[in-house]
């Protein structure tokens, strides 16, 4: 696994040195070997010890056998971004052990499966060798499970070496197995065995240690896709169509897991979930459902988004509410389906031919996945348009320390949808009702849905040119009027979507010379970098964009700063490009800092980039 910071370089960045409750552990195994359970047990244990923790799964696009790396970061300061270095390496994969050993930073620790073939020539690290087979042979495990359970060996060894109490590990196991004691005990006996073995044979020679704290109380551990699923369910989603694609699949899996939240008195579902034959069908279905009055959504990733282009243009132009989650992965094309990236932003914003523009919400964490999960459905109905929510593999598939979610603070918003009675009242008051007439000068018309028992409710929905009475028209004036209204509507959306979140360095709120703009999963790394930079005297303000289109606040922030670094995890600097193409400012003070290296961003990278730019004028 690639590590940004080389042993030498590391020394120049004192603030990133590891310490107690402040280092990362990396577990290298084979995909599909069952190590995921062990990793989560480690994470849950730290969580239970009150230590802020985060996990990142670096897995291959493969079902079984290819290398996978899991990193677990403990951070007493509560940083949840990926740590640039992983001090402790659990090397349990023959295919990568040589590379894994080479990548251990100076001063780090190697826990190697002694059954593998490898050579260590690193006097600068501490080495522990663990005879996994031997340890396992001391217990009795059902043959079918033995291989998977062998992964518990490194858990036990870590418990001993780094100070995780065994009772906490057992609690974590119980959680993991849904409080089922039998599997928990079976796995625990392997932990116990290896703990005992380690106690007997391994002398602690390094300084890495976990110590109980109280920084996780009241917090939860959850994956972003799970949060998004809950958001949708609490947002009153009634129709989901989807086609499996990594890393969005688990979003819908989680909706299925939580279906019990949405049963009626008879145990019947209040939400329909349909596996479509592909993404064209998935998006067609949610558009049909949204048109017919359901609150509908899908979840997909890049290739799926590409396939949805034509249909989302229709939904935009015919003004049909629906929600599309894009849990992004590394593109172009099939790219790296199991690596993270923020590379779909510009494409989502302009998805479909011919002057189409979309709303895109940009959650940064699990809490916002939940919040935007329900809000997106409201905004879609309110603005009568498809709403994209762009998350990414890092947010969606990794486990995050989070505040518990806030129950929605506003009632479900159906926007200007007229039922039979409301339509009647509207007609009484206005003497007319035309679907696309701009009665409120906000660009949003009033809609009815099929099945409204009123003789005047019907109108004709189409992707072709139409006047405000929803009648087909090729007249230039009608076309222009409609396009202009759609643009006004888009301007209305600027105030409806979640606004940017600011972190000003000075308490007075006065602007520093340096501004930072970022979005999505980079957020924890940006905060961490800002704090480290501040400690070194480089102060910066930070604006996190939470949606497209932008509001005036964005331009104000940019104008107020001398230099604004736009930090993104894609290759082209797409947010920066959108800012540039829409900026009303005469000055151009944006600096695009882009990563796009398949991994979640680290604070160190941001820090390095900014220092470098600040040094070289």
């Amino acid at each position: 696994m690639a590590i940004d910071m080389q042993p030498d370089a590391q020394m120049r960045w004192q603030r990133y040195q590891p310490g107690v409750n402040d280092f990362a552990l990396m577990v290298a195994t084979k995909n599909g070997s069952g190590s995921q359970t062990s990793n989560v047990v480690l994470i849950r244990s730290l969580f239970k010890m009150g230590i802020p923790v985060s996990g990142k799964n670096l897995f291959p696009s493969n079902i079984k056998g290819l290398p996978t790396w899991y990193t677990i970061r403990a951070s007493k300061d509560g940083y949840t971004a990926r740590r640039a270095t992983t001090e402790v390496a659990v090397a349990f994969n023959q295919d990568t052990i040589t590379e894994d050993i080479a990548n251990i930073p100076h001063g780090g620790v190697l826990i190697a499966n002694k059954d593998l073939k490898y050579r260590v020539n690193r006097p600068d690290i501490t080495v522990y060798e663990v005879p996994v087979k031997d340890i396992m042979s001391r217990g009795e495990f059902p043959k079918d499970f033995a291989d998977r359970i062998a992964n518990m060996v490194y858990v036990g060894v870590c418990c001993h070496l780094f100070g995780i109490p065994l009772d906490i590990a057992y609690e974590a196991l119980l959680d993991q197995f849904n409080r089922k004691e039998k599997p928990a005990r079976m796995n625990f006996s392997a932990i116990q065995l290896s703990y005992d073995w380690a106690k007997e044979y391994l002398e602690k020679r390094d300084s890495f240690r976990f110590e109980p704290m109280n920084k996780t109380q009241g917090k939860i551990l959850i994956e972003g896709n799970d949060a998004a699923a809950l958001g949708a369910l609490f947002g009153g989603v009634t129709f989901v169509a989807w086609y499996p694609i990594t890393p969005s699949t688990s979003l819908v899996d989680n909706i299925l897991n939580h279906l019990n939240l949405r049963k009626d008195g008879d145990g019947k579902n209040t939400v329909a979930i349909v596996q479509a034959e592909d993404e064209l069908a998935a998006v067609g279905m949610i558009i049909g459902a949204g048109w017919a009055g359901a609150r509908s959504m899908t979840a997909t990733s890049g290739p799926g988004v590409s396939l949805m282009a034509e249909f989302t243009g229709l939904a935009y132009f015919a003004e049909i509410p629906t929600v599309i989650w894009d849990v992004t992965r590394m593109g172009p094309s099939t790219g790296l389906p199991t690596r993270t990236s923020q590379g779909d932003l510009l494409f989502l914003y302009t998805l479909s031919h011919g002057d189409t523009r979309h709303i895109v919400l940009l959650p940064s964490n699990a809490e916002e996945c939940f919040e935007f999960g329900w809000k997106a459905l409201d905004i879609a109905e309110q603005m009568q348009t498809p709403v994209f929510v762009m998350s990414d593999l890092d947010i969606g598939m990794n486990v995050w320390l989070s505040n518990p979610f806030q129950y929605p603070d506003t009632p479900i918003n159906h926007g200007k949808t007229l039922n039979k009675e409301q339509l009647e009242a509207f007609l009484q008051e206005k003497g007319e009702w035309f679907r696309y007439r701009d009665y409120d000068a906000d660009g949003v018309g009033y809609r009815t849905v099929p099945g409204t028992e009123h003789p005047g409710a019907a109108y004709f929905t189409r992707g072709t040119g139409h006047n405000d009475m929803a009648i087909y028209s090729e007249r230039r004036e009608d076309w222009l009027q409609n396009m202009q209204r759609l643009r006004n509507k888009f301007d209305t959306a600027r105030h409806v979507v979640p606004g940017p979140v600011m972190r000003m360095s000075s308490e007075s709120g006065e602007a520093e010379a340096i501004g930072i703009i970022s979005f999505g999963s980079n957020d924890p790394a940006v905060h961490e970098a800002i704090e480290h930079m501040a400690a070194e005297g480089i102060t910066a303000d930070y604006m996190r964009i939470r949606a497209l289109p932008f509001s005036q606040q964005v331009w104000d922030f940019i104008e107020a700063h001398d230099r604004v670094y736009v930090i993104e995890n894609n290759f082209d600097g797409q947010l920066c490009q959108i800012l540039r193409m829409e900026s009303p400012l005469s000055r151009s003070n944006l600096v695009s800092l882009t990563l796009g290296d398949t991994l979640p961003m680290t604070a160190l990278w941001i820090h390095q980039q900014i220092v470098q730019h600040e040094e070289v004028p």
Partner: protein
Amino acid sequence: MPNALGLERTDYKGATSTLCPGCGHDSISNQIISAAYDSDLPMWRVIKLSGIGCSSKTPAYFLKGSHGFNSVHGRMPSVATGATIANHDLIAIAVSGDGDTGSIGFGQFKHLIRRNVHMVYIVENNGVYGLTKGQFSATADEGQFLKYYGKNDLPPIDLCLEAIIGGATFVARSFSGDAKQVQTLLKAALRHRGTAVLDIISPCVTFNNSPDSTKSYPYGKENEIPLHEIELMAAGYVAAKQEITIPEYPAELVIEVEMHDGTFVRLKKLGEGHDPRNRAEAITLLERASRENLLLTGLIYYEEPRPTIGDTLSLTATPLARLEDSQIRPSREALDALMKQYM
């Protein structure tokens, strides 16, 4: 004369057609209007769906009191799937073309049928792309010549056969020149639970109407072979079951198909006859028709309805689109309890 809903036939019309005078599609629109009027169809419950093409324009030309959705080319089936699941009270009438269904939309068509989406699916089949001016569609005759595009070298897709193989439970073929048959089949289709497929030969008088084309008027008029005379003994959508006097035929000439809601389709054998309840026979019939180039029309296949996609989703009784907010947002307590699990 007003129907049971107090509506006149003209109430079931739509906007004035902008198709070519004489286009087969307009006759079908007319039969949809008549069938809806005769069936006392409550227009507010109807949705009209289509893709793109001359045929797909027609939903604007009938049932002005119904919501219509002219979507994108070839992908109407997915829109219909979503809409009918969102509100299972809706009566869905879809119109597509042979290009829309057989070319670009073939995958969605097959998957719609596999899901057994509850709807009437009409293909206005003219063997060409009308709206883009006369290219061959996937149902064009093999070996046929067209002015601009030369010879068609590919075998035609048989949409009825594809529907049956794909799991459709109501499959009919008709000819837009046979107004009565079209109308009766439409009425029966409206009674069906699940996907009812109507493949209606509907001549494009502008681009594919020379008598040597099996999709032309002259050919249809000359060669249509109705498999049976069809009569429907059906309830209106609002009124009680109507007593229709059916002339007495010898039993061996008559097949009566009882539908889901008690409606009877009575088929009086013409020529060799055909029992639409026999799947193997239906397939053989279609294979023979295609081999011998016969325009056999009528109810080709009927099967006891299997569950629709909506049925399999174990949904609450109220249409999803009509659920109260309180039914679709779990309680604050539910969230709190859940959060505890993640702690």
